[in-house]
């Protein structure tokens, strides 16, 4: 079985206009981006549009990816989260009153890359283990910041905690998460 190209090579090929490389990156991370979209947007049809926007942006603006700044997965997730939060804050999204997971249930699977499934599965186990070690309130504050796009002030208000306390929750939560992942 031929060696699978790594993500960096795939991004380089995408920059050169190789649509097959885009397909392989999609096989590896399409599900992850969709999952993140469903979590942030709480709507499957919105998440579907998000996935489409993100992968087409990767295709059209491949030169923007700088390998010196991080791995392709980091770039994809950062881009997806940013676009999802922009979408969530848009007036049209707010007007539609999307507040809970809804839309077409679709359990059909894409032909995901088997190597990626193994790597992502192992990474997922590590992240879940790291999160399980966090104090629940730290974890909640981190998730509110990352998945809900809330600022310190907004989180403090929702949790009815002093601002300084919330800042500590998020900072310490993320530092501990980093340390746990390093030790895994």
């Amino acid at each position, binding site marked *: 079985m031929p060696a699978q190209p790594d993500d960096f090579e795939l991004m380089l090929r995408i920059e050169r206009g190789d649509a097959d490389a885009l397909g392989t990156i999609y096989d590896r991370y399409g599900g992850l981006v969709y999952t993140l979209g*469903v979590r942030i947007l709480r709507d499957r049809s919105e998440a579907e549009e998000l996935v489409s926007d993100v992968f087409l942006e990767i295709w059209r603006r491949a030169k923007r990816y700088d390998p010196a700044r991080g791995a392709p997965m980091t770039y994809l997730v950062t881009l997806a989260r940013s676009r999802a939060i922009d979408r969530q804050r848009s007036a049209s999204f707010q007007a539609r009153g999307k507040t809970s997971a809804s839309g077409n249930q679709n359990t059909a699977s894409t032909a995901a890359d088997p190597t990626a499934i193994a790597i992502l599965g192992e990474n997922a186990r590590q992240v879940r283990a790291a999160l399980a070690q966090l104090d629940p309130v730290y974890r909640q504050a981190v998730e509110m910041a990352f998945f809900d796009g809330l600022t310190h002030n907004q989180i403090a208000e929702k949790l009815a905690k002093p601002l300084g306390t919330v800042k500590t929750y998020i900072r310490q939560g993320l530092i501990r998460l980093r340390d746990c*992942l390093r030790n895994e």
Partner: protein
Amino acid sequence: MDCSERRDLIFQYAAGALDADEQTELRLHLAGGCPQCAGAYAEAEAVLAMLPLALAGEQPPADLKRRILSQARPVRTNRWDRIVMPAAIAAVLAVAVTLLVVRQLLPANTSSTADQETIANLEKQLTATVTQLEETRESLRGMKFAQLTGDAQPGAVGHVFLDPSMNKWYFFTCGMKPAADGKTYTLWLICDGEKMPAGTFSVSQGGTATLLGSIPPLPPGAPVTLAVTDEPSGQAPQSPTGQMQIKGAVE
């Protein structure tokens, strides 16, 4: 705020959890290229990017990949980008630098409504200018470009942009010497052996000139060349008689 303090905030910055003024301060600092803070930021982004892995996996619709790939058409870039994009990027930098200066001039913990509004307005301008930058890049696709140079004017360069969607061409040049007494420069559009006058011009004291016109009917796919000659003033030549100044083919 020094770099040690900035790195204390880098995780919250990467998560977008900081308040607007801190977020701006860090964004501008990172844009300035501080290697230590950039490294801390890259690490923070990498940690945060792992978080979605802990979510229960959702499967996108089976045909989504096909739909995305059907829209992934070849992306063509041309020399327009290299000429026009620096100006658009400069516009973004101008707003960003203004924002930085305003932030530095204001007290560290300003609570003035007017100051906050100034910052908010600059933030909006920065976002709008970045959007314009992207729109500029998009609008450049499909444009055709020619760069004109010539031995008679070693310090001069001309640029011609052809916009087939609007049927317009735009010419500008810099570094040209003034035409000799009794002479005027003429721009020619040359296609299939036919030389069509596209306009006459004089250069400013700084050696610059611009011209704008409509693209005449041209055989599809035929190569197009543009050239500037010097011609007797006060005449409307129908074919070049003077010396070739600068010349270039459309890419």
